[in-house]
């Protein structure tokens, strides 16, 4: 296994829906300041695992440790203050709002809500608002879309919407960012851009966990990979190690056709 | 192209809206004074909504009376003009309508409304403006208990009715156990109280007193509880639709009870809708189209001639109300509201469709004739007419 500081540990997570095992005894260790890929064919349990991490689904057994402390079962909105933010597989932005407002929601937990000051148009609320704006614009600049700041999100191209979602996750000032198929629907140029953004984020000290179908992208960018199949981890480690794993080859690449079909649909 | 079309339509709507708003302002001229003496009567009633049948009946009868009075110059030199507004039975809309009639149409006197809650709301407006108001339809007890000197009521006197009904049940039919089954509105609630008081007065046992909401369709649950109480007579206090349904369901449940009712449900429709089941229902009313009374016959004849349908009791009361107003304006020869009010209070010597009106100090018409009737065949048969003392 790789060295470094363990930031997120998933220990023995099992969960079943109506008798069907979705995850069984899943162990994943994510190192700080790395890009960790979770791959697997459709229905392997990747999304379930994400939902468990983000508190949307409660596991039947197993624990999650964040920087060595056990995560209690929390509500989804309590996750951001702990330092985990996410993007969604099928972009979930606030479509009728401006790009800036979307990213400002990412800032939500980091400034207080001084009700009295808001009602009186007081200095405090204006100051907080200013700080939030600065942070949000910073995130937009990082993504290179600060010029779209005042556009309504639904008018943006798909690839740009992904970036807005990314910026929103970034504005939450997380330690870990969960990316759910970030490259889905992107054209090759946008993918290259995405790769460089992910790389830059890692360089800045963020930890990223991503679910992705684009094998090339995963192999290119990830430091570590966990392969899920039928709710179980079948291979784990650095890309070059995993690539040679026989289980991985039979379970995953054997179904290459399906994989391609899916990529096309997206 | 589509876009342009769309914005054109929306522009059109905006224009219409603005036009409507302006037209409202434009109407404000009102009646310009002419050599003729004109008394404007503002009428508020529910011409749509749940009690539309009462509001429309009132509208027709008032128009009939106004036309007659003007034709035959029964109001002296005064010409009557009636302006009608719909309140949908909603108190807020009713008070807006009353405001409009007073401010815009310059009404000298207001006839309003049918629903008690609307009448109460209108009274606030007429009292503030100092304009006399007559309600021909609202029977709620609280209306004349406000200490409001501008309100008059030409509707049937409910306590008189409750008393007469309970007395009749005891003395003529020998009933000892009764139940009340009343609508949960102001009319029904005050009816229930009056019946209870009457029952105590005559020593009858009240075994059940359920209520229903207007618009209800299924009354069997309440009727079953009445059956369990062993009532011999059931007193209904509400409108005819519900009364007809109740009598139907009494029959369906095989309940062996005598049904009683009050003037609120007195309408030919009750007999039609109630059919078999309504036979034998005893009710008091102020107006009976078949009654062998010349004033009644004349009214019914004129009304059916003009509208091709039978008048409703509310209509008869509203019709009389206009005659009372005509009499008052003729006597004072003034449209000054205070003089009109005093003239109304001194109404006497009129022989109208529903009796010889006379107001007590609270504004109640205590001169109404009361008819105890029973449904036999397709009409109400008069059992007894009680003239007011």
């Amino acid at each position: 296994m790789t060295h470094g500081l363990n930031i997120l540990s998933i220990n023995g997570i099992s969960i079943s829906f109506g008798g069907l095992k979705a995850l069984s005894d899943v162990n994943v260790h994510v190192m700080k300041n790395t890009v960790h890929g979770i791959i697997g064919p459709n229905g392997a349990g990747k999304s379930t695992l994400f939902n468990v991490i983000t508190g949307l689904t409660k596991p039947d057994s197993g624990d999650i440790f964040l920087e060595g402390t056990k995560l209690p079962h929390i509500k989804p909105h309590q996750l951001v203050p702990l330092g985990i933010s996410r993007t969604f597989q099928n972009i979930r932005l606030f479509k009728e709002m401006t790009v800036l407002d979307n990213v400002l929601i990412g800032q939500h937990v980091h400034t207080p809500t001084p009700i009295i000051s808001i009602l009186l148009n007081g200095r405090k609320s204006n100051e907080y608002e200013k700080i939030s704006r600065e942070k949000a614009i910073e995130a937009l600049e990082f993504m290179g879309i600060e010029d779209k700041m005042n556009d309504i999100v639904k008018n943006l191209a798909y690839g740009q919407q992904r970036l807005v979602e990314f910026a929103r996750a970034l504005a939450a000032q997380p330690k870990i960012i969960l990316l759910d198929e970030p490259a889905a629907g992107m054209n090759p140029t946008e993918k290259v851009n995405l790769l460089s953004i992910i790389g830059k984020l890692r360089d800045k000290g963020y930890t990223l966990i991503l679910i992705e179908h684009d094998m090339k992208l995963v192999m290119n960018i990830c430091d570590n990979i966990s392969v899920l199949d039928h709710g179980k981890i079948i291979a784990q480690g650095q890309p070059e190690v995993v690539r040679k794993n026989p289980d991985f080859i039979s379970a995953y690449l054997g179904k290459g056709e399906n994989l391609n079909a899916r990529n096309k649909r997206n | 192209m589509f876009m342009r079309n769309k914005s054109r339509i929306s522009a059109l709507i905006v224009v219409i809206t603005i036009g409507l708003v302006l037209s409202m302002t434009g109407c404000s001229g009102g009646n310009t004074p002419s050599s003729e003496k004109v008394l404007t009567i503002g009428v508020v009633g529910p011409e749509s909504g749940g009690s539309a049948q009462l509001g429309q009946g009132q509208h027709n009868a008032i128009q009939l009376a106004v036309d007659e009075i003007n034709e035959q110059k029964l109001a002296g030199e005064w010409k009557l003009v009636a302006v009608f507004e719909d309140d949908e039975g909603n108190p807020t809309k009713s008070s807006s309508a009353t405001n409009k009639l007073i401010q815009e149409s310059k009404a000298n006197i207001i006839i309003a409304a049918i629903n008690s809650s609307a009448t109460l709301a209108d009274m606030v407006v007429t009292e503030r403006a100092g304009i006399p108001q007559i309600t021909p339809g609202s029977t709620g007890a609280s209306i004349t208990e406000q200490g409001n000197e501008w309100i008059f009521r030409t509707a049937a006197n409910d306590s008189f009715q409750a008393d007469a009904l309970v007395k009749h049940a005891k003395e003529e039919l020998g009933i000892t156990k009764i139940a009340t089954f009343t609508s949960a509105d102001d009319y029904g609630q005050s009816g229930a109280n009056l019946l209870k008081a009457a029952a105590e007065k005559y020593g009858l046992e009240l075994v059940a007193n359920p209520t229903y909401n207007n618009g209800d369709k299924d009354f069997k649950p309440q009727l079953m509880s009445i059956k369990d109480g062993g009532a011999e007579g059931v007193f209904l206090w509400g409108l005819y639709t519900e009364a007809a349904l109740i009598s139907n369901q009494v029959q369906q449940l095989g309940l062996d009870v005598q049904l009683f009712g009050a003037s609120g449900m007195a309408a030919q429709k009750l007999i039609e809708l109630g059919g078999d089941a309504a036979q034998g229902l005893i009710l008091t009313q102020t107006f009976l189209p078949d009654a062998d009374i010349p004033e009644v016959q004349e009214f019914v004849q004129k009304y059916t001639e003009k509208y091709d349908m039978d008048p409703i009791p509310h209509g008869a009361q509203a019709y009389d109300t206009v005659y009372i107003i005509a009499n008052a304006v003729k006597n004072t020869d003034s449209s000054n509201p205070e003089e009109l009010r005093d003239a109304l209070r001194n109404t006497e010597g009129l022989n109208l469709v529903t009796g010889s009106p006379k107001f007590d100090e609270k504004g109640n018409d205590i001169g109404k004739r009361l008819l105890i009737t029973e449904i036999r065949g397709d009409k109400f048969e008069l059992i007894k007419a009680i003239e007011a003392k």
Partner: protein
Amino acid sequence: MIRYILNGLPIGAIYALVALSYSFIYAASGVLNWSQGDMVMLGAYIGFTVYQILNLGFVPAFFISMLAVAIVGIGIQRFILRPLRKSNAPAINVTIATLGASIIIRNLALMIWGPDAQLFPFPVSNKPISMGSLSITPQDILIVLIGILLMIIFQYFLKKSKEGKALRAVAQDRYAAVLMGIDTEQSDRSAFGLSAAIGAVAGILIAPIFFVTFNMGAGIGLKGFVSAVVGGLGSVPGSIAGGFFIGIVESVAGGKISSGYRDAITYTLLILVLWLRPTGLFLKKRKQKV
């Protein structure tokens, strides 16, 4: 107690039909038609006109009314829902527009048929048959029977016919149905037409016991909606069960607890059901997909 339950059945059958019409539109088109109660009223009035005024007999009245009201339903789809879908208006706009339609239909009925209640008797006896303390009329039995028969026909139609299958496909997943080449416009139309016709039947069935008035739709429509939601909006068996359930609850609450608070009890129950089992009493819980 049994008396009260028995008494709730005929009304329950009517509620079930109205609930069905709500559910059906909701499932097939994803919107709610707030003028559904007025379809009940229109059905009753048209039936009344054909049967009592034109004297064409009860069975023709039944079918003419269904057809005429179905056309009104399709008209609502054509002139209200379609333009709203085209302009991508929010769901609330459909609500307001159908409420507007309800106001129009109700007041047109007031103009056409007048404010008085009309009598529309069934050609069967209204005399009770007694069994001990229980009694029921042949009319009530007929109402329940016709209601149940119609529900069975309806269910059969959905399961077996081509149209019905298409409707079910759209109800399952509108987007996927479009991909499969199903004309959702057509399914909207069928849903509105059929629901209106079901409403018309409810109107005719309820007319003999409740009379026909221009504003009868308001109460029945709302109760039908409540029944649909309590039973499981979008599900045929759920709506039917919901209808009978609310019918019985009202009967028992009105007789045993308080007649004045009867509707308040129904609504409290509704809120409790929504709170504890948002998908309805008689439907399995569904998981929200993330």
